């Protein structure tokens, strides 16, 4: 029995524990993820660890559409978890991958997704060493859901954390905002519009490795994913009991992203990113950190966008390009376009 990777679809049997499942795991997952730990085909991966601090994280991916300009749910599932590890300053080592497949998902789509995961893992220098597959009946899933968990090692002396922002610190961003959210929205069923923008989905561990090597004392690292820059900075302000003042002119947003947000009535500061990071460090280290970031291909558009302030209200404010000041608040509920 051979898997029909061209016209076949996921069937309940692919999750049934029998030969069909073994075939699916072998032909799609093991073949793509191919590494010594996975190839042992045990129910777990066993490995030695060196001394020092570890970081561990998990994330589930339920994105629709499964394929979007610049990536798909598979590459995203690797980048997202790698980045969550990297935001602790950690070098990611191993990932697990759990798949919930919906009956009827074309096997060709599954293979594309898994190959993207393998490629993303290879580029990030991380191995997918254990996994799980379940199949749910048609109508009970959304094609495919993926969970990845990861483990990474933190270099000695590195300890970025959301509660370490201090008044006077500089706030840096690694590149333009909103690319991922706009790329995904442009492909949503009821919203399709043409925009020349790709998701920024990418692994940031390479960039972070250089940043923490040069400035080990970075106070905060965080990737502004759902809720965008606005939500992430508000989280940090709450954790650290500080305020922030941003300069709108310094915040990089690409023309097409600005135009799409303008058209949809959205604020790029609320739109999701999957390949950008926020760094907060002592003011005297900011220029050096900026230079390191700009020298890396994934940080070439990096910018210093504001300062941490002393503020009991923990407000994040923005000096507008127009000359006024406004709050940068959390998004209220789901991001919905305005009527006018």
């Amino acid at each position, binding site marked *: 029995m051979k898997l029909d990777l061209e016209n076949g679809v996921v069937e309940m049997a692919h999750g049934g524990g029998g030969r069909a499942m073994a075939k699916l795991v072998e032909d799609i997952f093991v073949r793509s993820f191919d590494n010594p730990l996975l190839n042992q085909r045990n129910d777990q991966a066993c490995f030695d660890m060196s001394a020092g601090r570890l970081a561990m994280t998990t994330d589930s991916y339920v994105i629709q559409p499964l394929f979007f300009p610049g990536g798909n749910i598979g590459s995203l599932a690797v980048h997202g978890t790698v980045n969550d590890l990297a935001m602790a300053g950690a070098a990611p080592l191993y990932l697990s991958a759990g798949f919930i497949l919906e009956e009827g998902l074309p096997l060709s789509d599954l293979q594309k997704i898994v190959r993207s995961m393998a490629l993303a893992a290879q580029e990030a220098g991380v191995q997918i060493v254990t996994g799980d597959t379940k199949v749910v009946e048609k109508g009970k899933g959304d094609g495919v859901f993926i969970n990845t968990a990861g483990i990474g090692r933190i270099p000695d002396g590195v300890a970025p954390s959301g509660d370490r922002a201090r008044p006077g610190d500089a706030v840096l961003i690694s590149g333009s905002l909103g690319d991922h959210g706009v790329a995904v929205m442009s492909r949503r069923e*009821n919203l399709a519009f043409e925009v020349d923008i790709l998701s920024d989905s990418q692994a940031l561990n390479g960039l972070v490795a250089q940043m923490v090597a040069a400035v080990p004392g970075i106070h905060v690292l965080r990737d502004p994913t759902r809720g965008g820059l606005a939500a992430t900075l508000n989280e940090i302000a709450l954790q650290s009991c500080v305020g922030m003042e941003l300069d709108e002119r310094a915040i990089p947003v690409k023309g097409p992203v600005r135009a799409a947000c303008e058209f949809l009535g959205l604020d790029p500061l609320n739109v999701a990113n999957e390949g950008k990071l926020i760094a907060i460090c002592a003011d005297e280290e900011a220029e050096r950190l900026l230079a390191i970031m700009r020298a890396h291909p994934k940080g070439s558009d990096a910018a210093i966008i504001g300062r941490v302030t002393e503020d009991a209200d923990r407000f994040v404010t923005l000096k507008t390009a*127009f000359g006024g000041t406004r709050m940068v*608040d959390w998004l209220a509920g789901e991001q919905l376009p305005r009527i006018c």
Partner: protein
Amino acid sequence: MKYIDEFRDGDVAKGLASAIAHEARPGTRYHFMEFCGGHTHAIFRYGIQDLLPPGVRMIHGPGCPVCVLPMGRIDGAIHLARQHGVILASYGDMLRVPGGGRESLLKAKAQGADVRMVYSPADAVALAAANPDRQVVFFAIGFETTTPPTALAIRQAHKLGLGNFTAYCNHVLTPSAISSILESPEVRDLGTVPLDGFIGPAHVSTVIGSQPYDYFAEEYRRPVVIAGFEPLDVLQAILMLIRQVNEGRFEVENEFTRAVTRDGNAKAKKLVAETFEMKRSFEWRGLGQVPYSALRIKKEWGDFDAERRFVLPEFNTEDHKACACGAILRGLKTPADCTLFGTACTPEHPIGSCMVSAEGACAAYYTFGRQRRKA
């Protein structure tokens, strides 16, 4: 972005701000109402108030169609969405607004109702064409700007022979609401609500023209400037109003000459007149009953009227007693004066009309302007 960045230029803004500071006379009151939520949003989003001298104050009017829709009408939409076989199509920002029972279309959706977000009534017509075995109801809201597209959708559904498309009509009229504010006893008698001029919404006037405002300017002796929604448009309009006040004029001036004419869009006006008729009275959240302030679908297009197609119970819901929205919409109070603001009433849990949409005065103040309270 070409044709947008030019209207957000910080240097030009500085020039206008200094002209305003120069021409606004100390001791003279310049309290201007921007009627439309789009202007309110722009004022807060760009921090325009920071560029104005202390005597120039902006009062945020009721021109947000999402905000002024009474909760009973939202309950009506939720009721329709829950009918067997119905797809309810709505503009995005209507979805989370709570009705009387604290339910919203988003909550109804979570409970199984088929609620779809659309960008245009044409999308709702397309939904009806694609789902012939379902009833598609378009939740039609908005001022004069969104009314012609609803009319067009009804025509389109008729042309396509779609027996499964209806509109739940909640279109409201700008001039009637301004009249209501100016006629209110607080404004008329005591002069306690000083409104020294109005900024009129440009997009409404691209349809109705500037002419309908002539009456206010004359009857109430208040200047009106019709302005676009970019921050420089707003600053320019404020300067034009200051000049009218200084010169004792009360005229209708048009700042948005790039698209607004005196008579507006004849074709759109004709389409609207042929499809809709005035309702004798309509309830506005925060303002109460306002005579001749809303539209309903004419009898000859009754097949496309959701209120004729479905049996819709009357939902009457009163606003929270402590809610100050009515006073805020008339300029009597500011959001910060309301005891509910920022405590019981937030964008996540809006209690009053001004908090339900990003266009509302309280929501804009909460989201963009809270830091001002410290100043």
